[in-house]
């Protein structure tokens, strides 16, 4: 069990991190190259000011037609994403690993807060799963990939939660948690989770077209 633990926090963590970082860079660079080659009727219209205008408006959960039409989904989406990013980044347990292995000091949030945020992420996953399984318009469009990404997130946070509370076999759950987290990280560039790295550009493009050419709101 110890050897397995050593492996998942050692080499496997490096591999997952490398896939995430290098994979993201590769995706961004190759996508840009493709846009230059094939989307030149769109690319020159990109505009920083109007990209930001669009992004800022869509970061307001009450500020757009789409969010307003589905307020519950909007609320859960925001809470889910905020917690999803903050919790792993500033969790004490993660910071300890960083310090132990690399001597890097890292800001942290309290365990109590992290516990709460984790529950919110799990609740968010459950909301999305129920929504996807029951709402007609979602059932119509859902594919395997949609289930994969949401269960990957759920698995990571559920095992993290269980490990923190030392449910079942602590070390086994912990290894599962690390594996799930690494799988999630490595999946980001190559699955639907890639919206994390591409969102600002897609949003920015729409914002640019609407701002610069169409002189209209895109929210």
């Amino acid at each position, binding site marked *: 069990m110890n050897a397995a633990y050593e492996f998942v926090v050692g080499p496997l963590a490096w591999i997952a991190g490398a896939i995430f970082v290098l994979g993201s860079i590769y995706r961004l660079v190759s996508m840009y190259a493709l*846009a230059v080659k094939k989307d030149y009727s769109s690319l*020159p219209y990109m505009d920083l000011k109007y990209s930001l205008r669009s992004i800022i408006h869509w970061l307001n959960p009450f500020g757009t037609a789409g969010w307003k039409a589905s307020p519950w989904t909007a609320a859960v*989406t925001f809470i889910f994403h905020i917690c999803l990013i903050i919790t792993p980044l500033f969790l004490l347990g993660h910071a300890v690993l960083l310090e132990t292995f690399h001597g890097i000091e890292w800001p942290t949030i309290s365990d109590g807060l992290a516990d709460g945020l984790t529950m919110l992420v799990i609740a968010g996953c459950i909301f999305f799963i129920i929504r996807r399984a029951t709402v007609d318009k*979602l059932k119509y469009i859902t594919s395997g990939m949609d289930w994969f990404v949401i269960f990957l997130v759920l698995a990571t946070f559920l095992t993290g939660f269980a490990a923190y509370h030392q449910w079942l076999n602590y070390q086994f759950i912990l290894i599962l948690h690390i594996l799930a987290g690494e799988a999630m990280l490595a999946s980001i560039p190559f699955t639907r989770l890639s919206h994390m790295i591409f969102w600002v550009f897609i949003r920015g493009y729409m914002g640019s*077209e609407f701002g610069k050419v*169409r002189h*209209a709101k895109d929210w």
Partner: protein
Amino acid sequence: MSIPGIRDRKIEDVGLQAGVDRLTEDQIQKTIKKVLKGETGAKLKLYAETCMRCGLCAEGCHYYMSHDKDPSYAPVSKVRQTMWEILRHNGKVSPEFIYGCAQIAYTECNMCKRCAHYCPLGIDIGYIISVVRRICHKLGVVPLYIQDTAHSHSATMNQMWVKDDEWPDALQWQEDEARDEIPNLRIPLEVEGADIFYSVIGPEPKFRTQLIYQAAVLMNETGQSWTMPATPGWDNSDMAMYTGDYEVMGRIKRAHFDTAMRLKVKRIVMGECGHAFRSIYDMGNRWLGWKMHPVRVMHAIEFYHELLEKGQLKIAKTFDTPVTLHDPCNIIRGRGLMDQAREVVKAFCPNFVEMTPNREHNYCCCAGGGVINCGPPFKNVRVEGNKVKAEQLIRTGVPVVIAPCHNCHGGLEDIIHAYKTGQELKFLIDIIYECMEKPDAVE
């Protein structure tokens, strides 16, 4: 591959049927691959990959809202039934599947882009549908009626098979008519160096000639330096853009811009048309390699607004009947003329009532995007697909609806009739003509 949705509501169309009858799966795959590889890139790839299938776009679509939230009408579902299947099967799809793709892309999406206000990612579903149309066009699977207009564009450079001599003839006829009212009125042809090239759409000389009459009165009575060409290139409309025939779109737009340049005008002012504006301002110019239009292009609303601001257009009387304004997608969501439109309306109409939603969020007329041009077989698709518009019109409680767009007129007319809203439909120029000062008029 077949899921409930379009397969359950197939509509017979000679153009679509004859098109698919000629196809084999191998031919389809070859063509699709060529379009995807040659004409699409990062945009389509990212849209397909990052769409989170959240369904938020559904509420943005009038078809979805009008069909009691039938999931198969949601914008994302239209992509689900077309492009995603195409991508998933690497283009290896059946002729029957292509029939469904064409029916969805040409008749169940107006490419109004209202759903853009609902997608958190910023995915342009109108664009994805336009790629589906492009594929269908390349495969020769296009509804008969709209394909006929595209043929007309190709053969005559106008949408309505107006022959070269019929065009100046129609103008002369309107000039003659108008001279009864305003004896010094001229419709100047081929005036090199005029300020304005006034351009219209094919249907105007064909069956909406009163619009040419009214525009001539406006130009004459506000003292404009203007002209119209006597040659092909006068028509600014563009159904080829909507069939996916971008080669013909390019030819039409080039003829139009070339005509403006030949006449050495300062700007093109176009009548109250939405899709033509999209073609000149946003699509055709890009196809020809212009980042923006090479000659300044002005929609009628912007022009009326300018005339009012400069004091050239004077108001003789107000139009007191309560009115509401329908915001056409291509000039509001496509060009941001909502404030100018309101200022012009309010200048003439003291009793103006907003419909809700309005401005960028207004519901589509359901005729645009070439849907009305697909003809009688699909009339009920757009009338039933826009119940929500009828309800919106009825809620205003006013007797007059102003729609400054030809397609919107066609669509709203059918909706007003089918849902018995009892409203009268007007162009802005109808009201301006009725209420403006006409110093040279004899009556």
